[in-house]
């Protein structure tokens, strides 16, 4: 699989790195991309299994329809899923954490350390089998949807502790 290019292109790299302040030396960290891609593909297979099973138990044009739906879903989503999983990356800057991802819809999230209320580590069954987990950051806003999937548990715990310490130091009241 070809390495997906960074979502916002080369020029955004320059802007982003100029914002780092004291922590300018820090680079982008990537996640366990292969396993993350595998996890999302396994999830896709589970999703495809539903119409496939229905197709197996029915007959005639209904069977044809469900089989086509299953095949179409599989073909259309297989490669984009893998590629989009490869776009996840994050960066610890002086004052905030920058997460950036997305293939079709590209998204860059900035979460200031001083605004983190708590940090979760979650892992679903598929993720656990593959030995990865998702780090979730919560602020006082329900709108902030900041997460980093595809982290190895050991790294996730280190990151969580680091973020907690940074948050403690810079905590700002509401």
């Amino acid at each position, binding site marked *: 699989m070809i390495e997906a290019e960074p979502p*916002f292109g080369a*020029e*955004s790299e320059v*802007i*982003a790195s*100029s*914002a780092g*302040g004291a922590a300018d030396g820090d680079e982008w960290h990537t996640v366990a991309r292969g396993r993350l891609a595998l996890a999302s593909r396994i999830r896709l297979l589970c999703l495809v299994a539903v119409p496939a099973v229905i197709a197996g138990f029915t007959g005639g044009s209904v069977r044809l329809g469900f089989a086509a739906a299953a095949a179409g879903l599989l073909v259309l989503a297989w490669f984009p899923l893998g590629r989009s999983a490869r776009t996840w990356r994050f960066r610890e800057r002086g*004052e*905030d954490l920058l997460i950036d991802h*997305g293939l*079709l*819809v*590209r*998204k*860059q*999230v*900035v*979460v*200031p350390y*001083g*605004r983190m209320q708590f940090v979760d580590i979650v892992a679903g069954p598929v993720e656990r089998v593959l030995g990865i987990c998702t780090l979730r*950051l919560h*602020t*006082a*806003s*329900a*709108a*902030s*949807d*900041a997460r980093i999937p595809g982290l190895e548990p050991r790294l996730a715990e280190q990151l969580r502790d680091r973020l907690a310490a940074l948050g403690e130091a*810079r905590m*700002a*009241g*509401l």
Partner: protein
Amino acid sequence: MTQAAGVDWSVPRRTHPWSILVNAVHEARRVVSGLVVAVVSGRALGGGQLVEVLIPAAAGLLGVLAWLRTSFRVAPEEFRLDSGVVFRQSRTARFDRIQAVDVDQPVLARLFGLAELHLQLGGGRHGHFRLACVRQEEAARLRAFLLSRVEQITAVESAAGHSQQTDVVVGGEARHPSGDTSPSLAISGAGAGTVTAPAYSAGVPYRLQIDEAPLAVVPHGRFIASWALSPAVWFAALAAAASITVVALGSAQVLSGTLPSTIAAVGLAWERLQRYYGFTLSLSGDGIRLRHGLLNRYAQTVPVSRLQAVEISLPLFWRAAGWARVRMNVAGYAHGGGRGESGRRTTALLLPVAPIDEAFAVVGHLLGAPLSEIPLRPAPSRARWRALIWWRAYAYGFDETVVITRRGLLHRRYAVIPHAKVQSLHLVQGPWQRSLSLATVALHTARGPVRILLKHHDIAEAQEFLTQQSRRSATARRSVRELASENP
């Protein structure tokens, strides 16, 4: 104040005895429906006439017990409320978590000269305290005390040992008041001097008298006119007219179908009139005070530093009159501030109706930024391919204190957020936006009616804004911390 100096909140105190009645009315829906069910089923089981006496008596006894078992007290760091007959509940509200303090007076409580105290803690669904009821002046004094502690603790939090420097005269030296009857826990009357409210403007705290300085008063005529010009009221009028017609035609079956929704619509319209009638926004020593209400009286107090974001909206139907409505995000208000009490959802209103200029002036004054002087940058004209007509509405601007965004053509909305209140931010670009080199930036704030979105701006500009804004917010947060620590 006659007996003022003697109030000591560090010992557990009971609410006023009339609370039993007020609380029964507050729980009316549950109490009445419960009573009806109990009486009907009691009769069905053959209890005879006796149940009609016994069950209400039991309910009354339960109310008395609930009152006997409810007490509150002020501990050095928190407010405590113990309650519950069968299941005991002991809740504590840390002073530094208090987002807003409301003193409400339902009609019945008003008759007895009582008031309910509501504490908003911003902690999600259960972050709300209701203390019902205490005497009105006691509620006011408790509010003044709690709010002074909020400011003090925010100031002390990062002061690292400079606590004696905080200039809060109310309960001044009480950083670690002991449990005994130290005068620090008692508010000494109304003439309690001045307190310092933190302001964003220029980073310098300004002094205010503790008595209130009205910033905006909504005249009754304007309020009623604006109320009559709202779709909810039209809908209620239509529904009521339809119901009356149905009655006149004598088709009772249709009525039983439409009646509940009619009652709901009329109730909503009435609630709006009742709740926001006689609205006064003033600035007092402990924050923004909103007083309103026709039958029930409400007094909300939000410390200026707890204001997360503000929206000035210009509804279509008010355009001819040139009026605006102002809403705010305050942590805690968005959750309805309680268990589904009607109307509670809309308490995030800062001004129900005001001329546009006045609305901008008031918000600008509160946030310390000259809003109308901030130049707005419109979305580029190529955004028309993404948002056909509406692209003209999108614009944003910022100065050293706030970010302001504009959206909506028919219903225009200006959202304002102080840099220090940005929780997190993101930049998002969909495929269609990418082909036009556009992007959307969102600034996240505590939950509430206000959303801050910079839609469909040039990608390079949006990138630059994201970077600069995270820096501006970091600087603003730092200066708020420093301001709090060196509060003179």
